[in-house]
């Protein structure tokens, strides 16, 4: 059966070039970077080269890059690590549309006595800057707002928030897990102090990620052990994973112009063709301030998991904000926060494109949707 993967915001296939770069680090160059001997030095060299490569790609210095096990850990390290620098009750500002890696970390901080303000977003999923400004308090130590949202692709005004945070001396973190490779990610242009990246979202291997920590920004570790990663993230470094991450970041930069134009063409075509041929469809998220690879649609009178299953039976992989498809059986908090009615949340579909998708894939998806939506609407009680 034809297989069309369009769920790149969930994870991506590892690029064959990335696999090639990783392979030597399993069986030949397998040393522990802390070891004195040649095997160790080879690993330390690879680690250092990876750090420099990533730093170059995002406008950082190599000592500002700390490797982690993924996006979730990077977000946790940024938030818990910043709060760990202060005594007493800290206040954190974030948005209602953050990933659970941020929201649940903030919820934990609330449980242990800290304060968190969750800033709302408008109907397009863009953060309310005025609300953010007026929520700043004496004890605000951190603002964490994601660069681009994983469900509706809305791009946040990071520079603007960074300027506010900097002027108040508040540490500013952004989760760039979804934005890297799709829109420009340069730590200087963004003006951030902390920035999270996850390897498996950019055609790198799972199990690797990084946190950019601007020189002069101090954070506390959340895991303790050997002195790896300047003591901020102990544990034998996952060299093959880190080499994979660095290769993936590098590839994303090299391919940036081609990829982002390609994705934009596919995205716009998908939106246009779906809207033109299917009734009762709504585009969720901002029309232009949106990732070039993200399409989030709601279909009237049909439920997302059923849509997913029908598409899956045609070999098409996408996702939904409907409760029934998720293990937690909770409907998307992001779609709720942009004020979407319950039936539209349950009827939502996220199509996240990748560099491997073609216009043919788009046409296959659109024609499949035409058939499936009409079948489900025939069954539907709505």
């Amino acid at each position, binding site marked *: 059966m034809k297989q069309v993967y369009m769920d790149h915001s969930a994870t991506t296939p590892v690029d064959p070039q990335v696999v090639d770069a990783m392979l030597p680090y399993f069986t030949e160059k397998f040393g522990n970077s802390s070891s004195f001997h040649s095997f160790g030095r080879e690993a330390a060299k690879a680690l250092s080269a990876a750090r420099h490569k990533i730093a170059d790609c995002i406008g950082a210095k190599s000592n500002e890059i700390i490797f982690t096990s993924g996006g979730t850990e990077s977000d946790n390290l940024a938030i818990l690590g910043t709060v760990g620098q202060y005594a007493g009750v800290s206040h954190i500002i974030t948005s209602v549309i953050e990933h659970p890696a941020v929201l649940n970390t903030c919820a934990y901080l609330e449980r242990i006595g800290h304060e968190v303000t969750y800033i709302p977003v408008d109907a397009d999923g863009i953060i309310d800057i005025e609300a953010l400004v007026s929520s700043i308090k004496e004890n605000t130590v951190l603002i964490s707002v994601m660069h681009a949202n994983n469900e509706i692709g809305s791009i946040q005004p990071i520079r603007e928030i960074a300027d506010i945070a900097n002027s108040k001396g508040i540490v500013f973190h952004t989760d760039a897990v979804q934005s890297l490779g799709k829109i420009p990610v340069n730590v200087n242009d963004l003006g951030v102090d902390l920035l999270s990246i996850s390897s498996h979202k950019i055609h790198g291997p799972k199990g690797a990620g990084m946190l950019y920590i601007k020189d002069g920004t101090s954070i506390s570790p959340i895991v303790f052990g050997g002195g790896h990663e300047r003591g901020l993230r102990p544990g034998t470094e996952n060299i093959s994973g880190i080499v994979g991450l660095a290769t993936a970041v590098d590839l994303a930069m090299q391919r940036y112009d081609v990829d982002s134009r390609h994705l934009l063409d596919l995205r716009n075509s998908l939106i246009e063709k779906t809207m033109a041929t299917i009734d009762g469809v709504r585009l969720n998220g901002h029309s232009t301030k949106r990732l070039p690879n993200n399409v989030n649609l709601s279909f009237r009178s049909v439920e997302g998991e059923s849509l997913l299953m029908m598409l899956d039976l045609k070999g098409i992989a996408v996702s939904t904000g409907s409760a029934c498809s998720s293990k937690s059986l909770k409907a998307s908090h992001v779609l709720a926060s942009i004020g979407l*009615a319950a039936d539209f949340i349950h009827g939502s579909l996220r199509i996240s494109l990748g560099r491997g998708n073609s216009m043919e894939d788009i046409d296959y998806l659109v024609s499949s949707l035409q058939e499936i939506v009409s079948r489900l609407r025939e069954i539907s009680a709505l």
Partner: protein
Amino acid sequence: MYSKKVIEQFTNPLNVGTIENADGIGEVGSTVDGDIITIYLKVDNGVLSEVKFKTFGCVVAISTSTIVTQLAKGKTIEEAQKITNDDVLNALDGLPEGKDRCSGFALDALNKAIDNYIEFKKD
């Protein structure tokens, strides 16, 4: 994760539709829950001669809906009232863990429709 039976029933559901001048109608769920199931009955001499459904909902909602209509059709009112959730689950070769929230909705709708028929007859 879903059994073959669930997917079969989901992709080729029997008894989809409404019944004009139905003898009984039962509806459960809401758009907030993400599932709305309506079951329609035609009763001839105490037997459910026709049972149809319309469902907005997930894979479980649709597959349990069609199974419930198939189990009920041709049964007497009394027999139909004895259909259990286990009968539904057995007919579908089970449901995945954590997916049983909406598994009872279709049966609830059937029972509501039967109650509606009985109430209506009384009047």
